[in-house]
């Protein structure tokens, strides 16, 4: 497609850099600087999409991020393979470049002929909220029949189908002044704010280049020079300042607490030459001392019948296409306006060679100098006229207009031919970010808009976003805001700039004599919300604007109501005959414009999603065929299958080896905390249930920790290395919270204690040797430590060296067997492991993983906190009341243990369960009942917490929490299975008697 509507010269496009874009399979031509919207218009293509509900043909309404209608599916990197496509891109902000493949959405079979448009005919039924009133019969038809049909009809584009190959970046930044918006106010603010070289200034703008509305402006002057010259000078000045970061293509979308403002920068989508792997977008998380909001304003559409025809555009947008992109959106233009600013569009279009007429709602007497200017330029202006309707199919072809009598009556109608319409209902300051900052809005009746009132955070608004529309005033306001933001004088000199046409007469719905219940005059274009929908909502009692929004969905589309909110609000206020503030304003929430999930995630994808913590021995495990499992952030070796083994076979081998010879296990992930200081023992007394004073140096003790509410929190072996030094171990998952829990009490309840806590989890690699041959394996490598039973009994600790490496050697066991835990500095972990493993070959050493560890501990009845306990278990519930000191007056959790329901009879208690069929392994999590024949709901008396096939026991074993369980040992119960129940007997929770040298000796 060539460019029949491209002007011969002018525009901010580079005619030396032609480019093409694929549009619905056809080739669009354009130039660097174009958007897809300007290319479409240059080719004469106005039809750009189908509406959400009625599938009406829609064109391009706007030139910016407020575009509600021209939404495209864009494949950004078609040449690089699948996965670069996403839906719902605004044609008006997609910068054109070679290689883009774009398609229109929400139609079948084609854009021009869409079967879905039948909905437009059914629209008398599809009014606001119609779905609340029907589709209720038959009862199950809603989600089986009606809903799937509705869902299929709804939605806009197609979701991406492939994993996204793009990268996304993140950047935390700090600024003395952040300025959002680089139009005249923002540039002016940046100039004064950055004049002090010690102030860091960030200036961000959503557009491809700075300038804001001045980019569309060929006639205004500033200080006697063309406005864009001033912009270029300003940008050059800012570029030259080291203290300024200028960010084009960067949208401030979220204003969060404490001046945390989030921006998203489009880094590479506009670049045909972007290297693969360069971030697509970057999230800027700016913490600013001061913020200047210079976010401009949005033009309001006018509401009349068929105001959604392709070719009907916002007036300023039409001007932008003519001036900035050198495109004529048609030959015959009618400007319909309630605002003076649209006359500038008429004048510029006329100057560009279009046939132009103006229909002004206002009476001639209410107009300003713009009226004479238009008439002087030879433009026919019909003041005091209204638009009854637009005519046309896939493109506007004419407007039916009529004079409005002084009594409001509609005069004789006139049909004016045209092929494009520019409309303006005046302006709405863009207060989104201000509102997000929690600033309070005030309604300014003078300009019929909400403007910023009281700031809550350190920010100020400047320019059009606070209702200033005259260029000179905007610039002065910007300079003042920038100066104010750095604590300077807020009263700069006036700025000389050409006067703008300002002023407008608010109008909600254009007067018409048509039956309002029969016509469609759109308020929200994308969601197909019409005037009659809003009237219906109010009629049905939805009077708060939030109710109206929710009932009609006005303002809820992807443009988030930028063009529709004020018209909807004004309409509701008019119907209720209340002032607008009494109807309320919606609270703006992030984001200002939609932001990709990718940008919000940043680098936290794939291998950078969550850190994978690996132990020093992980490499050995990987080389030796370990199957891993995630445990919190850690990955741990679960079992070590040999050729042909499944998990059960590997488990059988590993668990038998530990009880018959020796096993080696990587326990490095255990949390470890060094507790040091003169008051270390006293601290331990208070934080654990056990008493610690009598634990001698060199001794170990199993410690139990409660939360203040009395429930089991964590456990682990604690060694006393010296009078003032404890080596505490915690569960793998519990390490961070246990340290925090300890620090909390230490710092906030007992600051008088002289004791310090240091995490040493990762200082030490921990190699567990467990089994009758453990000593034999270890002995040759130990120096300075005697390993004999008498010299080094169970539950003691010694320091020395292993393999010549400094070592904290624990004689402990989580298997019931003779066992050692060899703690060596982490960097030596793998070497010591390898040495011991190699030397252990002659003893039949077998590496085992977490799964075998669980089986082995269960065989001897040791609990795992978090498996047998679930945050609702007391020490007594899990049979550990012996670890709760009776003599200590207080420890964390003690008082809670005596609350009535904590000591009540019938609590669930830890017991063993033995299935009747010894080969049957219960499901972990199975529920236990006394009588499987009882009716539902059944009385559940407990649940299975751990269950394994135990090779050492020659049968299955299970642990369970059973109501009053210890008193029920010997009783037969039934546990659930995937298909029914199975019989089991309650037993003590110890299943295996260790032969030979036991841990409990």
């Amino acid at each position, binding site marked *: 497609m060539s460019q029949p509507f491209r002007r011969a010269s002018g525009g901010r496009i580079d005619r030396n850099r032609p480019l093409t874009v694929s549009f619905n399979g056809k080739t669009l031509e354009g130039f660097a600087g174009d958007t897809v919207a300007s290319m479409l218009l240059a080719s004469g293509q106005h039809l750009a999409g189908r509406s959400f509900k009625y599938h009406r043909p829609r064109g391009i309404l706007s030139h910016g991020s407020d575009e509600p209608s021209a939404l495209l599916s864009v494949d950004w990197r078609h040449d690089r393979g699948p996965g670069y496509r996403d839906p719902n891109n605004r044609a008006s902000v997609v910068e054109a470049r070679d290689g883009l493949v774009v398609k229109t959405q929400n139609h079948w079979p084609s854009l021009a002929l869409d079967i879905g448009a039948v909905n437009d005919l059914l629209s008398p039924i599809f009014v606001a909220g119609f779905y609340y009133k029907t589709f209720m019969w038959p009862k199950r038809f809603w989600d089986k029949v009606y809903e799937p049909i509705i869902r299929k009809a709804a939605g806009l584009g197609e979701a991406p189908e492939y994993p996204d190959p793009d990268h996304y970046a993140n950047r935390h930044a700090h600024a003395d002044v952040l300025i959002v918006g680089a139009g005249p106010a923002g540039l002016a603010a940046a100039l004064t704010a950055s004049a002090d070289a010690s102030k860091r200034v960030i200036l961000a703008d959503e557009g491809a280049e700075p300038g804001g509305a001045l980019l569309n402006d060929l006639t205004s002057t500033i200080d006697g020079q063309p406005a864009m010259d001033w912009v270029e000078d300003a940008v050059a000045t800012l570029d030259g300042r080291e203290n300024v970061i200028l960010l084009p293509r960067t949208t401030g979308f979220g204003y969060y607490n404490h001046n945390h403002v989030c921006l998203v920068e489009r880094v590479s989508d506009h670049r045909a030459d972007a290297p693969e792997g360069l971030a697509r977008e970057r999230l800027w998380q700016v*913490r600013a001392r001061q913020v200047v909001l210079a976010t401009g304003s949005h033009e309001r559409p006018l509401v009349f019948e068929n105001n959604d025809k392709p070719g009907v555009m916002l007036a300023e947008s039409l001007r932008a296409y003519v001036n900035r992109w050198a495109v004529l959106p048609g030959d015959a233009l009618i400007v319909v306006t309630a605002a003076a600013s649209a006359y500038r569009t008429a004048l510029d279009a006329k100057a560009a060679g279009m046939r132009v007429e103006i229909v002004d709602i206002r009476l001639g007497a209410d107009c300003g100098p713009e009226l004479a200017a238009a008439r002087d330029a030879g433009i026919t202006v019909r003041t005091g006229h209204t638009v009854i309707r637009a005519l046309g199919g896939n493109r506007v072809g004419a407007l039916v207009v009529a004079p409005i009598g002084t009594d409001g009556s509609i005069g004789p109608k006139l049909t004016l031919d045209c092929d494009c319409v520019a409309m303006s209902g005046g302006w709405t300051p863009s207060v989104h970010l201000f509102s997000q900052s929690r600033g309070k809005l005030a309604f300014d009746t003078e300009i019929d808009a909400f403007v910023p009132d009281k700031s809550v955070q350190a920010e100020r608004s400047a320019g059009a976003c606070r209702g200033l529309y005259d260029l000179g005033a905007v610039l002065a306001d910007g300079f003042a805001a920038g100066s104010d933001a750095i604590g300077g004088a807020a009263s700069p000199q006036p700025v000389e700039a050409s006067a703008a046409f300002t002023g407008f007469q608010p109008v909600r719905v254009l007067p018409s004599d048509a039956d309002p219940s029969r016509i469609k005059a759109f308020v929200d274009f994308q969601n197909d919300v019409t005037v009659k929908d809003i009237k219906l909502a109010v009629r049905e009692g939805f009077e708060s604007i939030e109710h109206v929004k929710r009932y009609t969905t006005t303002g809820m589309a992807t443009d988030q109501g930028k063009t529709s909110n004020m018209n909807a609000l004004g309409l509701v206020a008019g119907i209720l005959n209340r002032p607008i503030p009494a109807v309320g304003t919606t609270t703006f929430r992030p984001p200002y414009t939609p932001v990709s999930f990718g940008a919000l995630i940043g680098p936290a994808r794939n291998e950078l999603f969550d850190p994978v913590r690996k132990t020093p021995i992980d490499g050995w495990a990987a080389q030796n065929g370990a199957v891993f499992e995630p445990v919190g952030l850690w990955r741990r070796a679960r079992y070590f299958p040999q050729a042909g083994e499944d998990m059960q076979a590997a488990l059988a081998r590993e668990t038998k080896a530990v009880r018959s010879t020796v096993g080696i296990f990587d326990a490095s992930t255990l949390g470890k905390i060094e507790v040091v200081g003169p008051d270390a023992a006293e601290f331990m007394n208070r934080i654990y249930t056990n008493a610690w004073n009598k634990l001698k140096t060199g001794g170990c003790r199993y410690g139990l920790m409660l939360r*203040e509410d009395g429930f089991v929190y964590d456990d682990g072996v604690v060694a006393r290395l010296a009078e003032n030094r404890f080596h505490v171990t915690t569960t793998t998952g519990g390490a961070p919270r246990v340290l925090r829990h300890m620090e*909390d009490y230490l710092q906030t309840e007992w600051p008088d204690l002289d004791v310090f806590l240091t995490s040493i989890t990762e200082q030490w690699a921990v190699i567990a040797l467990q089994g009758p041959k453990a000593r034999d394996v270890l002995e040759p490598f130990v120096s300075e430590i005697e390993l004999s039973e008498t010299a080094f009994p169970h539950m003691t600790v010694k320091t020395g060296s292993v393999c010549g490496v400094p070592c904290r050697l624990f004689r402990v066991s989580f298997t019931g067997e003779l066992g050692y835990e060899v703690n060596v500095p982490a960097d030596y972990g793998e070497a010591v492991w390898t040495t011991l493993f190699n030397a252990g070959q002659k003893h039949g050493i077998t590496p085992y993983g977490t799964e075998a560890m669980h089986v082995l501990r269960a065989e001897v009845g040791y609990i795992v906190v978090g498996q047998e306990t679930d945050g609702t278990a007391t020490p007594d519930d899990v049979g550990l009341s012996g670890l709760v000191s009776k003599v200590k007056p*207080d420890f964390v959790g*003690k008082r809670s243990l005596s609350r009535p329901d904590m000591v009540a009879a019938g609590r669930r208690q830890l017991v063993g369960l033995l299935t009747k069929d010894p080969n049957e392994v219960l499901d972990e999590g199975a529920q236990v009942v006394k009588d499987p024949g009882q009716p539902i709901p059944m009385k559940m008396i407990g649940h299975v917490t751990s269950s394994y096939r135990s090779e050492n026991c020659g049968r299955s074993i299970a642990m369970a929490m059973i109501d009053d369980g210890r008193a029920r040992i010997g009783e037969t119960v039934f546990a659930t299975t995937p298909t029914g129940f199975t019989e089991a007997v309650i037993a003590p929770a110890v299943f295996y008697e260790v032969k030979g040298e036991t841990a409990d000796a």
Partner: protein
Amino acid sequence: MLLIRCPYCGERPETEFHCGGEAHIARPDTPADISDADWGSFLYTRTNPKGLHAERWLHAHGCGRWFNALRDTVSDAFVTTYEMGTPRPDPISETAKA
């Protein structure tokens, strides 16, 4: 994301901190002596005010210190932060200062 002034490190982003809930709920010296109701209240009852709230924060990924803060739960603005063990500042005098 809040910006929190650690009394030891200065202003830092919220992600470095862990909030520990309401401050100045002293753990009873002799818990054994108090009633179940009072103990339950100590464990669970919270002021939960709409307005100034004294709360505990831990600079977990910073200096590791717990401290207290006075924050408005409507605006989320911090009035002040202060070291553990010091009494809650009088918010009226703070307002008077400002």
